[in-house]
């Protein structure tokens, strides 16, 4: 459904992504793990065209082109078929929880307002925030904001939702509520690509784990393969380090 080939990205001569290839199939829940600075977030931002990749090919939603040759029409097509959940939530500060969700539906998708509100309420219910529909982001906790962020992505019914370290900015006691929502989504068949430091999520919820380091995919496979029987030394070191700190 989504196929990335040899995606490259650098900043001022510094190569961050050194040729990443990735296949996402419908219903996949892919966790991308790896040390800070390995390029995980950059990868998501380049696939979703928030940044323009220096090289590589994308096949998605009818677009089949090199990243550098994407027209603004192609970019719009890609953006309208993905959802994105940000580390810092990035809810629209001047909109209520409900309006955060209806905004994209009404403005970008041209859904009628009454219809959009119905969809939005359903999405809020799904993340357990029906009673917060009229609250502004500043009146919500971090965990609640992130759940609205997830509802906003879900309501658009995209082919795949990208999560960029969705729990990293949260106080520890708020992480659970967000992970629970993500777990529910995964179980209902939503296609998800998740950059995360939550090893439990990666291990027990995803069907595929990718370990990235220094701009490469070092190892990928089922959670069982990557966590229980990693074949690369780099993966072993990372897992030992991170699991020692849990």
């Amino acid at each position, binding site marked *: 459904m989504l196929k990335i080939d040899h995606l490259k990205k650098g900043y001022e001569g510094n190569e961050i992504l050194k040729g990443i290839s990735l296949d996402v199939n419908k219903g996949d829940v892919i966790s991308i793990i790896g040390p800070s600075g390995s390029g995980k977030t950059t990868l998501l931002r380049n696939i*979703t065209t*928030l940044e323009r990749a220096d090289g590589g090919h994308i096949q998605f939603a009818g677009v089949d082109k090199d990243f550098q040759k994407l027209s603004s029409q192609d970019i*719009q097509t890609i*953006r*309208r078929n*993905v*959802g*994105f959940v*940000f580390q*810092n939530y*990035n*809810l*629209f*500060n*001047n*909109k*209520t929880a409900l309006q955060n969700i209806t*905004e*994209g539906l009404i*403005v*970008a*998708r041209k859904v009628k307002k009454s219809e959009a509100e119905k969809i939005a309420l359903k999405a809020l219910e799904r993340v357990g925030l029906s009673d917060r529909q*009229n*609250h*502004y982001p*500043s*009146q919500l906790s971090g965990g609640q904001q992130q759940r609205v962020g997830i509802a*906003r*992505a879900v309501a*658009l019914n995209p082919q795949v939702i990208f999560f960029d370290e969705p729990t990293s900015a949260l106080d520890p006691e708020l992480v659970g509520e967000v992970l629970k929502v993500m777990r529910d989504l995964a179980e209902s068949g939503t296609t998800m690509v998740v950059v995360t430091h939550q090893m439990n999520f990666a291990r027990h919820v995803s069907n595929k784990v990718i370990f990235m380091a220094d701009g490469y995919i070092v190892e990928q496979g089922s959670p069982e393969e990557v966590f229980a029987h990693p074949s690369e030394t780099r993966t072993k070191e990372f897992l030992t380090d991170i699991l020692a700190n849990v």
Partner: protein
Amino acid sequence: MENVRLIINFLGQLLPAINITLVVSVSSIILGSLLGLGLAAAKKSESAILRVISAVYVSVIRATPSIIMIFVVYYGMPLLFSGWFHVNIEGWNRMYFVIIALTLLFSAPVSEIMRSAYESVSKGQMEAGLMVGMTPFQTFYRILLPQAFVVALPNFANSVINLLKEGALTFTIGVVDMVAKAQMIVANNSGGYAWQTYCALALIYWVISLAIDKGVTLVEKSYQAKRKTIAA
């Protein structure tokens, strides 16, 4: 008491000329804001030439005293127009020259206010807009602009009050505004009652400034109140 009676009397004589002051101020505010918006956009544009032009413009205009700007426009523009376009604009209503000068003056601080307000809105807001499928323009108009507006409001009001005061120089090129009117009153009284006349004038400016301040506070309050009532 005599003085109070005099001041009230002068207020009555000055007020009819307030039209000119208001027309000049409101026109300059509207035109200056549009020009300021353009300058702010130029400052944020990808073209280095536009950025430099905008930066130089703002730096020159900000350093120009209002009275000099008014004289430069009043004496310079007719020469420019006849030289370049062979159009004679010397017969123009002098108010137009003041409006042009104040528009130029107002655009510089306003562009800075708009730029910094825009920058105060997090970059993530634009990205979030793009990721729900909105175009950059839709996101700017519906998400960034309303947020920047609230941030810019207090500084914008300050600039408006400054403009209002600079507008008091309108009389220097012979437009009969409130200040010119006050001078005539003083002249008619052979130089008498001068301080009462100018006090009346100051009072009028004070009341206008007060109205601007109150207006801005009301707008700000309505923004906050809206959020509270909806959430309650």
